[in-house]
Structures are given as C-alpha cells and as structure tokens.
C-alpha cells in the first residue's frame, strides 16, 4: 500500500541535543510538509518542499531545518531542542498544490 512512513514513532532527546526525524513516502507526491502539533492545539505548518523548492513559514524558528535529498525522503532537523519543542511532528504529502494531504502517523518528541 502506498503510504507515508515516519521514523521513529517516539523520540526522546536531551535539552540542546540535535535530533533528526525522518519521513518517507511511496506515493510519489511532489509536495512534502512538516507540521508541529502540541497537545490540544491545531497542527502548525513549519515548512514544505515542492519538489526541491523549500518553503519556510515566516514564524518557524531557525532551530528547525529540513532536508529533502530525493522525492521519497524528507527530514526534520532540530538543532538545539528546547523543552517547548516537545510535540507531535506530522509529515504529510500532496500530489501538487491543493488541500488534500496524506499524513504519516507522526513522531512524538520528548525533550528531557
């Protein structure tokens, strides 16, 4: 089945220790997104790639970076995680522009 896969599902890191979250897709979609969702809040878009073009949201902290080495994979790098970065991180894809997103199961990040 075509799908969006996120690894790991649960990640624990220490305050200030860099961490990388992984997303892969078998849908061959052009666009890949990273969302941050804190408890009882709406998912918040951090950035997205349209093919190789990176689009950062204006309010995404510099602490968050992303890489997309090929169509299938996209990574979220948090350079110096703070306690406030503990959240669920959702990866999503879409074919082109447009509203219908296909989401992965998410990675829950804990910062100690």
């Amino acid at each position, binding site marked *: 089945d075509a799908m969006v896969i996120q690894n790991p599902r649960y990640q624990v890191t220490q305050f200030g220790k860099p961490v990388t979250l992984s997303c892969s897709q078998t849908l061959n979609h052009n666009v890949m997104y990273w969302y941050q969702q804190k408890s009882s809040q709406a998912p918040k*878009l951090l950035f997205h790639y349209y093919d190789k073009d990176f689009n950062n949201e204006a309010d995404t902290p510099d602490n968050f970076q992303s890489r997309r080495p090929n169509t299938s994979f996209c990574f979220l790098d948090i350079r110096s995680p703070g306690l406030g970065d503990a959240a669920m991180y959702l990866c999503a894809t879409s074919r082109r522009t447009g*509203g*219908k997103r296909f989401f992965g*199961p998410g990675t829950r990040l804990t910062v100690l």
Partner: protein
Amino acid sequence: DQQVKQNSPSLSVQEGRISILNCDYTNSMFDYFLWYKKYPAEGPTFLISISSIKDKNEDGRFTVFLNKSAKHLSLHIVPSQPGDSAVYFCAASAGGVQGAQKLVFGQGTRLTINP
C-alpha cells in the same frame, strides 16, 4: 491569531444519532475546506471537502455544510457509529483546490460515540 476555530473540544453522541461538528473561520479568502479524522497513534486522514462554490457536499454518512456569510461550516455524521469515535479537524485554504499550499487547521474536536 486563530483563523480556524473549533470551539467544542469534545462531543459525546449516542450510537445511531446524528453527530454535528462545527467550525468557524475568520479569513474571507478561504475558499476550500476539508475535514480530517484522526485516530490515536495514527496521522489524520482525509474525510470530506467542500469548495466555496457549494453549500453542501455529501459522501455516504458524512455531509459537510458551508455557510459563507456566517463563515461557518459543519460536519454531520448520520447515523453515528462507534468507529466514528476520533478527533476531527477542520481545515481551510485559499486559492481553491489547486491553490495555496497552506492549510490552516482548527484545534480539533474529540467525538465519542456511546453504545
């Protein structure tokens, strides 16, 4: 600035009855609206959408109504089933189906269907 609001964090409905989930938005440029459903430990999955040129879209037990003048949409589930118990997110974008990349989500409403 919460542009998409789901004011009810939770809703409990008896099996077989109608579930009505509400969503309000403030940005008049929004013209495409979606509902996503999320089970625990899974990502959100697309449920149903509506374009602003319509006021109703129906798919099986799910119907979405859009009231543009009130900037309000609602999701009706009839009849409600235990498997409908999940968190439901409303989302909106500007620029139509082929338009803007950015979807703005509401905070979600947790629906519980009681047997």
